[in-house]
């Protein structure tokens, strides 16, 4: 039995893809923009919260508690709740996306700084580092692998969520998927999903390489030369 090669029945119509290369490019730009802005804002906000949590340990539990609540709200529901308040658009998407990153970032930044061995911190104090110098020159570099690990999780999470953000009127790969669902036409759905996965994998790999480049000491462990 030979399947009929009609537009409706094939999973991917390469003709459609070829016609829409311009769209693929502009959707990619939109997707990356939404992701980068969310990660940057989320990281900045989380850094401030993590600094508060490290300095005043009692604030750590409430901060992670609020972060966890935000993290567990289903994304579509959150977008829905925001629409009456902020309307459709870029910032509605960003508010939701940023709120998902906070738990991941705060936890990883705090864990990274907590993970700096106590003797190293004591030595830094005894050498005469000021608090800020210690953070900048000792704690943050040593926390970097844990912070980058958080950044990778957050990036992959946000790239996935940006596809959902199309429901509040943003572009990105989600627009392909909505289009495909609308018209009961699988090609844009597949294209949107595959591109989203590829983007996530590429960003994850890029961050892993950046981490390696930034932590040359971690590669020479163990005394073997």
């Amino acid at each position, binding site marked *: 039995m030979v399947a009929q090669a009609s537009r409706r029945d094939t999973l991917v119509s390469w003709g459609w893809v070829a016609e829409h290369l311009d769209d693929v490019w502009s959707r990619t730009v939109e997707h990356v923009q939404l992701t980068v802005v969310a990660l940057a804002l989320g990281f900045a906000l989380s850094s401030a919260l993590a600094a508060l949590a490290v300095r005043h340990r009692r604030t750590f539990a409430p901060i992670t508690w609020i972060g966890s609540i935000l993290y567990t709200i289903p994304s579509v529901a959150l977008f829905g709740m925001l629409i009456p308040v902020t309307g459709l658009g870029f910032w509605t998407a960003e508010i939701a996306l940023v709120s998902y990153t906070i738990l991941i970032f705060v936890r990883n930044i705090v864990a990274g700084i907590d993970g700096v*061995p*106590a*003797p*190293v*911190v*004591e*030595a*830094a*104090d*005894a*050498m*005469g*580092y*000021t608090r800020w*110098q210690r953070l900048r020159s*000792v704690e943050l*570099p*040593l926390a970097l692998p844990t912070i980058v690990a958080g950044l990778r999780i957050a990036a992959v999470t946000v790239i996935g969520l940006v596809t959902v953000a199309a429901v509040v009127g943003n572009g990105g790969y989600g627009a392909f998927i909505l289009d495909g669902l609308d018209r009961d036409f699988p090609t844009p759905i597949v294209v949107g999903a595959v591109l989203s996965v590829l983007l996530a994998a590429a960003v994850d790999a890029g961050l892993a390489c950046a981490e390696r480049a930034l*932590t040359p*000491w971690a590669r*020479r*462990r*163990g*005394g073997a*030369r």
Partner: protein
Amino acid sequence: MGAADGGIAVSIRDLTKRYPGAPGPAVQELSLDVAAGEVVALVGPSGCGKTTTLKMINRLIEPTSGTIQVLGRDQAALPVHELRRSIGYVIQQIGLFPHRTVAANIGVVPGLLGWPKARIAERVAELLALVGLPADAGGRYPSELSGGQQQRVGVARALAADPPILLMDEPYSAVDPLVRGRLQDDLLALQAKVGKTIVIVTHDIDEAIKLGDRVAILAQGGVLAQYDTPDELLRAPADEFVAAFLGRERSLRRLGLRRADDVRAEPAVAVAPTASVAEAVDAADAMGAAWVVVVDRSADDRPAPAPDGPPVGLLAVADLRHRSRGESGGGAVGEGLDPERRPAVVDPTWPLREVLDAVLRSGCGAALVATPSPARCVITLDALAEALR
């Protein structure tokens, strides 16, 4: 350099530290002066507050009350990071920065003090040589070094800005005994070169005795039990606690602290094995010597006026005198010498512990002291006992 000559480098007055929630104070009304250029060991059982005391000197821990003067200045009046940059600090876990190369680790304090890069690099090279690390170690990361090498880097880092005072918190407890012994020897050799004021915390009384010019023994709750030179501590412990902490064999430990040239050596005369007992006694009496060294002349053909050569016997004049009263005047001194009981020759620089060992092994009751001059002298068991009195 830095430390006031012959003055007091660290002066601790009525220092007390109470931790919130603790039943008693960790350190109580402690007063202690550390003379410039001396090594002072703080030693005591765990919970005696020795580490707390050390950390109050560079204000890693803030005292509850009391004052500490560092080089004549109240250290509480200085900005804390400035104080710390002027005091070297070495800890047991070393605490090297794993993300920095060895050179960068050593250059930390000079960097904080704003030294130019070239001067830091020069200083790092100097310190690597001083602590006995190869010059190329500077480019490695701490994880690529052995534990002993890391400890050396820790010492180099503490010395980098040439601070007059060095604090060491159990610096050698984490390394194996063999390496520990070597690092202790290195520290003493280093101290002979740099002449810092060093305060070292240890729980090991042997380490305290070996390294300290003075030892402060702290009892539970940070009470100073005794503060004295190791020799004086061992000679006259202030109380039961100190005596128990010092352990048995106090006299044997003192033997390890003194050298052969600290002991009153007795004169001896050298005679040939062929000399008669009567001649030997006369020669000894003429010199006022109580000991006769029998020297084997057959070993060398030199027509020396005084007998010279390897000593083959060491005899007490009192014994020879007894022998001379017997039949035929006792014969020649060389007769009846036990080849198994060759006299021991000790160097004036040897610790008395080794001298005692040599005396006991030789079975002669005394040991000859190696001296460049032809005059002979011996160290006897009685002289050793007297030295420890």
